């Protein structure tokens, strides 16, 4: 297997820009480390033991925005761009529109991230949830997103294949949705629609960012990587069709469920609740499709760490969606909204699902990108178990905390009672953050040692890969 991989690494028949994929992965992992540290620092504010008290530009509120934005746009977006630069040329057999454009996008994206971080820490954050990127950086982001769309849509169109492969359905739709969503979410509530009508748009933006940017790119990458790693096709093409078109129809309708029981007209809230439950049905079909792809070969999860990451993420995804269909009900909302329940949910989705899929993809591709086998499979296992344990513990802890908070609020306990009751949960949350961080440190060590210390197979020289 390694022989075959390294042989491909040497040639360029598949149009993959390996150094660019590598660059996106490294940038994403650096962003991951910054984002995790920011999150951990913020968690200590909840223990009344903040790391940088009294320093304006490291104020907890600002650091929290760095946490979410750097993980969404730095870690997830960079890793997905790397994955797309691998998958799309391989599926279509065509290069991206322009290699120069790809490198321009890479550097522009890192520039946007740096400007976002500095802008937020200096007090220029835009008050749009998940869109705190300062308003004067948004035009650059828009140009970048359009460039990404053009760069990737070109090979999809040029491949000339009439029925597109499943992964390309998801990529095509996501490349259209993301710029539309970005311009809507960052400009309409900022300049045109105040209050309740603006909140309806903000809700759409928050949800579409997850549902129309991260989710379809994630599923698209899985529809490529799972069959490739398993060396067998996806179980059912018809079920793939239902999954994609169901997602495309229901997901965009969900947004207002972020502001239930708010002054937004109730018909929009009811519609969002129904559509959210609809998404759950769709997700079940995709889940069945991927589970059935494993049929008879579930042992692969033991031997293949990339598959293990991916399928753990898929199971977390189903749990997320069951939780979502449940928590969106207006009755459940009365208790869980505004509480740590939702924070737990967000961590399960963004990290437990998409983060895990990314770890699976990077674990699969890293040896091929650096042209050397993994330095330590044992460290990979530790990375998996520490991250999984930390994430599961954090989510259970926060969901439980949310229930305690929600019932104390409803029962009119003094506000401070909810803070005191939350304290042990917040301590446990910080501890689970440490466990996750430790897992990533081991991963980074392993990535480094693989690139530097692993014996290079003679088929490929390090120089050829670095070029």
């Amino acid at each position, binding site marked *: 297997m390694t022989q075959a991989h390294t042989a491909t690494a040497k040639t360029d028949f598949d149009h993959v820009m390996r150094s660019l994929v590598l660059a996106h992965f490294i940038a994403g992992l650096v962003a991951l480390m910054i984002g995790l540290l920011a999150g951990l620092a913020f968690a200590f504010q909840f223990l009344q033991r903040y790391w940088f008290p009294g320093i304006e530009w490291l104020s907890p509120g600002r650091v929290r925005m760095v946490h979410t934005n750097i993980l969404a746009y730095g870690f997830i977006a960079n890793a997905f761009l790397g994955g797309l630069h691998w998958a799309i040329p391989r599926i279509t057999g065509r290069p991206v529109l322009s290699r120069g454009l790809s490198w321009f996008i890479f550097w522009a994206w890192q520039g946007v991230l740096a400007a976002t971080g500095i802008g937020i820490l200096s007090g220029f954050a*835009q008050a749009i949830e998940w869109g705190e990127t300062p308003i004067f950086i948004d035009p650059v982001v828009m140009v970048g997103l359009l460039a990404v769309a053009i760069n990737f849509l070109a090979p999809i169109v040029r491949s000339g294949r*009439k029925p597109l492969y499943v992964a390309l359905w998801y990529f095509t739709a996501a490349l259209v949705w993301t710029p539309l969503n970005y311009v809507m979410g960052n400009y309409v509530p900022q300049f045109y629609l105040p209050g309740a009508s603006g909140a309806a748009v*903000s809700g759409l933006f928050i949800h579409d960012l997850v549902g129309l940017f991260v989710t379809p790119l994630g599923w698209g990458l899985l529809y490529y990587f799972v069959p490739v790693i398993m060396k067998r096709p996806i179980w059912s093409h018809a079920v793939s069709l239902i999954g994609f078109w169901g997602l495309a129809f229901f997901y965009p309708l969900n947004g207002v469920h*972020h502001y239930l029981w708010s002054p937004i007209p109730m018909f929009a809230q009811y519609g969002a609740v129904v559509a959210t439950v609809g998404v759950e049905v769709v997700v079940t079909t995709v889940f069945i499709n991927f589970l059935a792809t494993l049929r008879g070969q579930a042992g692969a999860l033991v031997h293949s760490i990339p598959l293990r990451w991916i399928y753990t993420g898929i199971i977390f995804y189903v749990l997320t969606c069951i939780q979502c269909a449940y928590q969106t009900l207006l009755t459940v909302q009365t208790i869980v909204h*505004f509480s740590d329940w939702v924070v737990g949910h967000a961590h399960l989705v963004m990290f437990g699902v998409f983060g895990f899929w990314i770890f699976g993809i990077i674990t699969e591709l890293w040896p091929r990108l650096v042209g050397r086998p993994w330095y330590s499979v044992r460290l990979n296992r530790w990375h998996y178990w520490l991250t999984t344990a930390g994430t599961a513990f954090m989510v259970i802890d926060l969901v439980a905390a949310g229930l305690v908070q929600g019932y104390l609020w409803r029962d009119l306990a003094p506000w401070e009672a909810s803070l005191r009751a939350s304290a042990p949960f917040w301590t446990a949350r910080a501890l689970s953050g440490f466990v996750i961080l430790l897992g990533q440190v081991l991963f980074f060590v392993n990535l480094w040692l693989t690139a530097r210390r692993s014996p290079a197979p003679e088929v490929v020289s390090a120089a050829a890969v670095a070029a």
Partner: protein
Amino acid sequence: MNPLERFATILLVAGLGFFVAAVAVEAWLPYQVLRGLPMQHLEEIARDVPPEFDDLAARYPESFKKHFGSPTPEAYARALRLGVETYRAEACWHCHSQFVRPVSNEDRRFGAVSYAGEYQNELQLPQLFGTRRVGPDLIRSAGKHSNDWHVAHLFEPRDVVPSSVMPSFPWFFDPPAGPGGVPQPNARGLAIVAYVQWLGSWAEQPDAPLLPDLGAAPAGAAPGGAP
């Protein structure tokens, strides 16, 4: 060939069509319902200067004079503008919501249930509903606490509410002028207090504090902080 697998169908129907349809149903229709609400601009909001703003001027005369002059409607407008900008910059809205729901006894805890009309103003561009409450909701905060409670709370929340996990904001204060002096709220400090005291000033307040601040007041003192 199945048209659902074609590039053009996916681009136009799934990519553009479903997105636009969802925006129409979930954003444009609500907007059609709410568009008749009158839009309030900052000048209208600040026309009547509330007693809390006069109190700030009297309580911190030097700082107030330096940053805002006298408590005129123009000064009040500037304070509200800087206040909401500070509220956004510090991401106060990530831990404090700004709407009271008609459920979970929130009207008894915070005050009147929120309605769409009260958000139709310039300071809700973009809206600050929020999605998380680490601290309490703020849309009914006007008059619940005194100005000096707010100032002390911003300087060191745990001096006022021991179990608070709110950050302290020393950069909202100028250092003491001389030995023995105390830090005075600067422009941002005065502005954020004016802004929070504005929130809900248009709505009817409950007559008496509904709930005591646990641990906030020394033993034997009268509970609550409403005027």
